[in-house]
């Protein structure tokens, strides 16, 4: 009904009504970026772990691999024989020089020729998904054949990546918590300011029989509307930023970086963000009004 549509406390005409939605927008924007980085990180770790857990790489120094023409088996042949005999091994593949060259080109440049460099021979080993290989025993067996060979199970690297991911996630959570605290403080401050600016209106509402909860509902409605508006703006800006960043990274050769595409789960978390902010802000406004009014005579 039109007669009751308007709020009794004219909070919309305050300066706070103009800058608060933007404050909320900025906070939601930062929180969304923090969350997106955390989500992307954990998904990337998942991918890497999946991709690497069933594999290992063996490096054999080039001086122990002699020309193919030689009749006696060299270290490479013996290691390959060992791998074929090892249970659970699905594939043991010697990397072609072209492939190694491709992997090294970003570091060495196109001009470098592998023939002149002591590049180790790489064997990429893939295990059956069900197999639980004894990496230590295999490493000992390889060491017996070629003491300088390196068996890389990727575990150390994965561990470091996991630590990095946990750090990034921890920081993201900290950022979100700090932003939530910031939102609470800003809303509490704005509400207290509104209470004092509109003190005469609130006093009148009380004198004609308004309960504290009625006054609080006026503030809640105001805060809910600006928090939702600001939250949606912030979320749209964050999604736009991620989209742009994804476009920029697509062109680069940063293969190590995780893909910046949002999954359905990410979307629901992100959409929840402005809703959560609006809820926190509304509850803060209610709590602040009720607490402030209860202290009044």
């Amino acid at each position, binding site marked *: 009904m039109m007669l009751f549509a308007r709020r*009794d406390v*004219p909070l919309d005409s305050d300066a706070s009504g103009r800058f608060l939605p933007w404050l909320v927008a900025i906070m939601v924007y930062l929180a969304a970026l923090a969350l997106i980085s955390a989500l992307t990180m954990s998904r990337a770790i998942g991918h890497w772990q999946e991709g690497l857990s069933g594999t290992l790489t063996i490096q054999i120094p080039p001086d122990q691999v002699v020309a193919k023409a030689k009749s006696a088996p060299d270290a490479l042949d013996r290691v390959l024989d060992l791998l074929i005999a090892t249970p659970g091994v699905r594939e043991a593949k010697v990397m072609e020089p072209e492939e190694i060259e491709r992997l090294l080109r970003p570091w060495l440049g196109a001009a470098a020729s592998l023939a002149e460099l002591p590049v180790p021979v790489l064997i990429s080993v893939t295990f059956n998904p069900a197999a639980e290989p004894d990496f230590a025993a295999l490493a000992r067996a390889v060491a017996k054949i070629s003491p300088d060979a390196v068996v890389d199970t990727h575990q150390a690297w994965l561990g470091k990546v996991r630590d990095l991911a946990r750090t990034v996630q921890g920081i993201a959570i900290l950022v979100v918590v700090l932003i939530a605290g910031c939102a609470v403080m800003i809303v509490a401050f704005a509400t207290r300011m509104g209470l004092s600016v509109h003190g005469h209106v609130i006093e009148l509402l009380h*004198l004609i029989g308004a*309960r504290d909860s009625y006054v609080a509902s006026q503030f809640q409605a105001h805060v809910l509307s600006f928090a939702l508006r600001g939250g949606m703006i912030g979320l749209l800006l964050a999604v736009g930023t991620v989209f742009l960043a994804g476009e920029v990274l697509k062109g680069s050769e940063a293969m190590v970086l995780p893909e910046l595409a949002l999954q359905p789960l990410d979307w629901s978390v992100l959409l929840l963000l402005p809703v959560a902010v609006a809820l926190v802000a509304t509850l803060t406004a209610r709590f602040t009004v009720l607490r402030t009014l209860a202290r009044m*005579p």
Partner: protein
Amino acid sequence: MTGASGAGKSSLLSMIYLARKPSAGRIRLFERDVTTLSRPETAMMRRKIGVVFQDFRLLDHLTALENVALPLKISGQRDEKVRRHVAELLAWVGLSEHLDSYPPTLSGGQKQRVAIARAVVGRPSLLIADEPTGNVDDRMAVRLLYLFEELNKLGTTIVIATHNESLVARFDHPVVRLVDGGVRVDRPRKGRA
């Protein structure tokens, strides 16, 4: 209620309409000691009291209609009947042309009548008017007091504060005089014209 400026009329009234608490003593209203009421109880009791403030205290961002409807909105009445009821009330105080006017565009007398309409819209048991004739000419003042008499006949207790002795003399009602921090009550003299 009458008394010289500064005698304490407004202070006493503000305690009666529960805006202030007495620093000593007790006030009984509707069979309750109001000094012991909780905040929600105070709110409920205020709904039985209509107040015409000396400075009207209309909300400038709401129309006359919305201002008068405010006590009903606060007490949770929000149906279609409210609009008609409020419009009728404003017509009764002669403001049917100004339903959608904002207080700053109204004259002092018009604002006063909006304030009176807001004070009576919730059918209060007690109506308090602080200097309701302070801002209007004598002709309007008499008209307003007749309006209060009408309400009184309908069963509302009415307390009016004024320092206008000639107005007090024109009406035949009990008079509370605040003199030197004390109270003197004059009963109406029977047979007076």
